[in-house]
C-alpha cells in the first residue's frame, strides 16, 4: 500500500506536473530519513543537511526521467551513500560533535528538545558500544543488522538499498545474529 501511494505521487509529479506531489513525498519520508541519518552522523546539522540533500538528489533523479521502483528504499539508498560520502570527505572528526550532537542550540529550544538531545547522545554511546562489539563481523552483516534492527526496514527495502536479493538479505540477517552469538 505504501508503495502504491508513492507510485501514485510519482505519477502525479511526472505526468500531471503537480509540485504538491513532491511535497507529499517529502512529508511522508522526511522523518524516517532524518532518523536514519541522525544516528550515523556526529551533528544534528549534518543530519539535516544530508536529509535535505537526499530529497534534492531525488528531484534531480526524477528530472533525468530515471525510473524508481521502490521510492522508500531509493531514499534510504541515497541517504546511505551521502553518509558514506560525508565520512569519506571528512578527514578529521570535529571535536564539537559531542557538544553539538543532538543539542538544539537555536533560540527557541525547549526542555523537551534538550531531553531529546540527551537521548541521542545516549543512543550514539550505545551504538558505539554495539559497533565495537560487532566490528569483527563482516560489513554486510553489520549493514543488514543496523537496517533491520535499528531502522526497522523491511527485508525487501534492505535488499533494494544494498542491491541484493531479498532471500540473500534474509540469510545474511540470520547468519549475522548467529555470528553475534558466537562472538561471546
Amino acid at each position, binding site marked *: 500500500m505504501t508503495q502504491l501511494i508513492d507510485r501514485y505521487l*510519482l505519477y502525479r509529479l511526472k505526468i500531471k506536473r503537480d509540485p504538491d506531489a513532491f511535497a507529499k513525498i517529502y512529508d511522508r519520508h522526511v522523518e524516517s530519513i532524518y*532518523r536514519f541519518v541522525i544516528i550515523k552522523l556526529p551533528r544534528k546539522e549534518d543530519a539535516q543537511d544530508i*536529509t535535505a540533500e537526499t530529497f534534492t538528489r531525488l528531484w534531480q533523479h526524477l528530472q533525468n526521467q530515471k525510473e524508481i521502483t521502490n521510492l522508500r528504499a531509493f531514499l534510504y539508498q541515497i541517504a546511505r551513500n551521502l553518509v558514506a560520502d560525508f565520512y569519506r570527505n571528512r578527514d578529521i572528526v570535529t571535536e564539537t560533535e559531542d557538544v553539538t550532537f543532538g543539542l538544539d542550540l537555536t533560540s527557541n529550544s525547549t526542555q523537551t528538545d534538550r531531553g531529546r538531545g540527551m*537521548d541521542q547522545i545516549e543512543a550514539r554511546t550505545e551504538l558505539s558500544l*554495539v559497533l565495537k562489539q560487532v566490528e569483527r563481523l563482516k560489513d554486510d552483516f553489520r549493514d543488514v543488522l543496523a537496517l533491520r*534492527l535499528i*531502522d526497522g526496514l523491511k527485508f525487501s527495502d534492505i535488499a533494494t538499498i544494498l542491491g541484493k536479493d531479498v532471500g540473500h538479505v534474509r540469510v545474511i540477517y540470520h547468519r549475522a545474529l548467529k555470528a553475534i552469538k558466537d562472538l561471546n
Partner: protein
Amino acid sequence: MSYYQLLKKIRKIKAIVQRSKPDPVWLLSTRSTLLMQVKNTLPVEAPRKKEVLGEMYKFLSPFFNFSKMVHKPVFAALAVIVALFGGSLFSVSAAEQSIPGDFLYSVKLATEQARLALAKDSKDKVKLKTEFTERRVDEMKKVIAAPGANKKEKVIQTAEVLKRDMDTIKQQLGDMQSESGAQDIKDTAKMIDQKTNAVVQALQDSKLEMSPEEKAKITEAQEAASSASVKAIEILADTHKTDGDVVSQQDVADVLKTHGEMVSKTMSQSFGSMPAIDAASSTTLGSASGTAMTTTTSSNLQKVTEAQKSLSEVDQLADENKMDEAIAKLKVGTQQAFDAQKTLEQESSLADDSAVDGTVLPNASSTEPVQTSTTTPSTSTSTTGTTPVNTGQGG
C-alpha cells in the same frame, strides 16, 4: 557483552531513534525550499503519450506484481475448473458419437435425460424423445456395421433402450393431449406417426442378418414403435372429434392408411425375406417335433392373413369416417402382424437349433407343407379367432 545484552542495547538504540524528531522549523523551511526548487524546474510542456503510458504502467505494476503472486493458485484453480467443466464438455461431445457398449454411452443417455428435463413443455419433450429414438436407430445401424465381439449384446441393449424410449413417447403423448392445443397435437401426432413408421422400417431393414434372439428384441422395439404410432393416431382422432376444423377427417384417414400400409409392408418383408422358414419347417416334418412345428407355422400364417384382413378393413372404415372402429381394427391388425412376426422368428430359431443338432431329415416333398399351409389360411379367413385348420393340419 552477551548476545541478549547486545540485542537489548540495539532495541534501546532503536527506541531512542524512533523517538527522535527533526526540528519542525527546519522541516518547514526545507519543505518550502525544495518545493520552490521543484516548481522552478518542473517542465511546463505536457508529457508525451509514451511517457504517460509508461507512468501508467509503473503505477499499475504493483497490480501485476500482485497477479504474479497469485498466478500460481489462480492457474491451479483454473486447471481444476477446466478439468471439471471443460472435461465434461469434451466428454459430452465425445459421448454424442458413442454407441452402446462404449464407455461414454451412459453419458450420452444421461445428457439426453438432462435435455428432456430442461424441455419447457410436454410437446417439446415428445419431440426430443422422438429425436432420440432416431438416434437409437442410427446407433443400431452403427452397431450392426461395426465389427465387435459383443455385437449381439449391443444390438439387444440398443433395442431395449429403443423400446423403452418408444414406451415413454407413448406415455408422453397422453400428457401432451391434455396440455397442448389442437394444432400442436396435430403436428406432433403426425410427426410421431411419420417418425415411428420410419423407425419400424429402418429396424426391419436391419433385421436381415440377425440371430433369432436379436430379431426378437428388435421386433419388440418395432412393436413398441408401432404402438406409439397408434397412440398418436388415437390422439389425432380424438382431436378430430373435439376440433374438426383443425384436424380433418382426411388427416386421420391418411395416417391410418399410412400406418396400415407400413404394417403390411413390414409383415410382407418379414415373411418374404424368410423362405428358409418354410423350408426349415418342412424339412422337420419327419422328425418327432415336425408335426407340432408345421401346426405352428400354419397357425402363424393364419394370423398373417387375419392381420392383413384387419388392415384392409381399416382403410374402408377410415373412408366411411368410422374412426374408432378403424383404430380398433388397426390395433388388432398391428397386434396380429407382430404376433405373427414373433412366432415366425421363434420358429426360425427352433429350426436353426434343430439344423445345428443334426436332426434335419432329408425330405423330397419339402414344398408340399408350404403349399398346404399357404392355402389353409385362405379358407379360415371367415372364421377368425379360431384355428380349425390346425387340427386338420396336425392330423
